[in-house]
């Protein structure tokens, strides 16, 4: 049976949190795996997307080179070349810079989401481990206040950790702000 997680660190965490999840269900605490779903992601898919932007950047460089070739030939047979050529040449440079920045930003956001998911998984495993004795007690039928409280606190700690990591995604998104508008515009 699969865990339902995409990120490998969260797949591992799902295995390690099986007992905490079962104990949480017994005492009416929030499902810690449901919380971890909020930081699940597929960094490899994001990296592939960023790499494809890099392919586009290379294709743009090729188009720019062909443009320059055409302009250079035209300049040899025109006394004055239209100023539009310089403007378009500048636009090729601006578009190439934006493409390079977008590819880099894509790789960076993939790395950051990857690290974020790994950190949340690691913290959840640590929390579950710390509450291990109480979790086993609950699963064995113990309903003492200390055991119930410890399991509920562990689940709350996982949720809190996930919330903190999810909020940091906003900072990652801000890095794309300047790249979401075209770098060149038609005259």
């Amino acid at each position, binding site marked *: 049976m699969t865990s339902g997680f*995409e990120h490998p660190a969260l797949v591992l965490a799902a295995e390690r949190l099986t007992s905490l999840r079962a104990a949480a269900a017994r005492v009416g605490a929030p499902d810690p795996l449901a919380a971890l*779903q*909020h*930081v*699940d*992601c*597929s*960094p490899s*898919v*994001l990296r*592939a*997307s960023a790499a*494809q*932007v890099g*392919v*586009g950047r290379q*294709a*743009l460089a*090729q*188009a*720019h080179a*062909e*443009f320059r*070739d*055409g*302009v250079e*030939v*035209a300049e*040899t*047979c*025109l*006394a*004055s070349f*239209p100023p*539009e*050529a310089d403007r*378009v040449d500048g*636009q090729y440079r601006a*578009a190439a810079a*934006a*493409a390079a920045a*977008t590819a880099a*930003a*894509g790789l960076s*956001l993939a790395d950051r989401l990857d690290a974020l998911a790994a950190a949340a998984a690691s913290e959840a495993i640590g929390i579950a481990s710390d509450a291990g004795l109480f979790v086993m007690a609950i699963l064995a039928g113990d309903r003492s206040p200390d055991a119930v409280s410890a399991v509920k606190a562990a689940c709350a700690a996982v949720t809190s950790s996930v919330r903190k990591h*999810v*909020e940091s*995604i906003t900072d*990652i*998104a801000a890095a*794309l*702000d300047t*790249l*979401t*508008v*075209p*770098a*060149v*515009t*038609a005259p």
Partner: protein
Amino acid sequence: MPVSRDPDRLRGAADLLDHAAAAGDKTAGRFAEARIESTPFGFSAQARDLAARWEAALAAREADARVLGDETSDLAGRLRMAAGGYRAARPRIAATP
């Protein structure tokens, strides 16, 4: 656009610009191929916002390439007009039947 003294060479330059324009369109396609659904970013509202911004960045790069393709193609057209202008400006010699 000034008239050229070498219309054939100018047409050759226009051909090169047409190639560049086609490459620009091809580039737009490459950026379009980078698009992905939002799921790999995650399911939180913040992750969905991040996915939307990535999508917007890809759309912006695609738009950049299309503008460059259009502008380069327009420039190629102007070179062809200059080449044609040179030919039209030359005195025509009536062909003998």
